[in-house]
């Protein structure tokens, strides 16, 4: 299953983080949604990426994903997560968000 699918485990996990910890309406969360369109300011985006990293037990290199950069979508975030966690069992079993 690829992360571009709206029902992929990766997408569902980050959608749950957005919904539960950052109070983003589920209807506003789709693979095509740009990070900049989530209604989160730069501080909250930093916390969101931080929470994603904790949930998937990985670190996203800054050059792969600068949350302040416009246009990056949730689909792109899923791809980065899947790439960074390739070969790791953690990807299939994201930890509960801790933000």
């Amino acid at each position: 299953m690829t992360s571009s699918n709206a029902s992929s485990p990766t997408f569902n996990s980050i959608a749950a983080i957005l919904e539960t910890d950052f109070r983003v309406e589920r209807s506003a969360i789709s693979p095509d949604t740009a990070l900049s369109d989530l209604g989160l300011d730069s501080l909250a985006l930093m916390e969101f990426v931080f929470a994603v990293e904790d949930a998937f037990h990985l670190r996203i290199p800054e050059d792969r994903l600068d949350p302040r950069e416009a246009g990056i979508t949730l689909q792109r975030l899923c791809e980065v997560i899947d790439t960074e966690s390739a070969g790791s069992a953690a990807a299939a079993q994201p930890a509960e968000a801790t933000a």
Partner: protein
Amino acid sequence: MSSGAAHAALAASAARAASAPVRVSGIGFVTPIGRTVEAFDEALFAGRSAVRAQTLEIKGMDPMLLAVAACDFDSNGVRSTSRLPLDRGTAMALAAAQDAAGEAKLDLDTIDRDRLGIFWGSGLAGAGTFDNTTSALYGEQRRMRPTTVLTVMPNAAVAELALHFGARGSAIAYACACASSAVAIGEAMRAIRGGWIDVAIVGGHDAMLTPGVMASWHAMRVMAPPPADAPSSACRPFSGDRAGFAIGEGAAALVLESEAHAAARGAEAAPFVLAGYATNCDGTHNTNPDAPGQVRAMRAALRDAGIEASDVGHINAHGTATSAGDAAEAASIREVFGNHTPVSATKAIHGHVLGGGGAIELIAALRALARETLPPIANLQTPDAAFDLDFVQGEAREAKGIRYVLSNSFAFGGTNAVIVAGRAS
């Protein structure tokens, strides 16, 4: 009008404004004795304490048995405008302030938010979050969150409150330990009387029930040991066998407003006003209270309200139940009021909420005014024989016709703050 007469008229007008009562248009709170007025009143007038025993276990140390008053409160249920993770105390502050603004029916779309201020007190602000996050940093090598600083800074709650309400007037945090919220409330009164703002959301909070913070209080030897057979009786203000306080948590908020502004927006009549306020400092010792400093503060608050000591029908004492604290306060109240004014002390039931204490205790005094009933000092069986005061003991006492109440807050650092409240005329 001659220029002399004009100046005299202006001076008279300024003097009237400087001493004008300020409306309490709404209240809200998160306390160990409840979040609703009904729950709060029930515990307050029955003298039912929320204090419980808690054993604090820290690796390598002897277990600590503590008297604690916790709130039944889920901070995850609070929505912040910033969407940032909140300190538990900030979440309580938001919940209390939203309730107060709701009761006041403040319409944020129509009021002039350049003239809406936030005046908020906290003694330890984000200490609980800092304790938890540094514990995880050192113990589990878990990195700090990107916005940790924003969560623990002394004005963390002020920032979230200002954002939530879109306040563009003053937004100031007051940090003077146990008097923080009383000072915040009083300074907002002054800002409204002075014409700098029209409306203020005021109050304070502290949420300190994390291991490092509780161990810090325990180390200071000011906390009461919870008796094995009756842990809820740990805090016994003004008692001969008093042994210190129980540590609490919570937040309380009030909406203060000038009468003119309330009239202009068509607000419903408010039952209470804040009539007088004073703050000063002992200037003598960090923790040892000074009765003369407290006397000066209480007299100044009475002068500010334009009333005599005999007009006050009830005092909600600071009443920490420490040996030195209660002795100084008993002496200062005796000097200002004699021994005829009934004294209560509500920390016995909701614990010491530090920065939130002044606001919670003022609300307790307002409830006494509303119900014309004085809350008993819980756990007070035998008052200290050295204290010559009229303590409300045993059961709540009827107080028909009561017009004014006074709430004391005396802090580490020597800051004293006294607020006088009365009925709206």
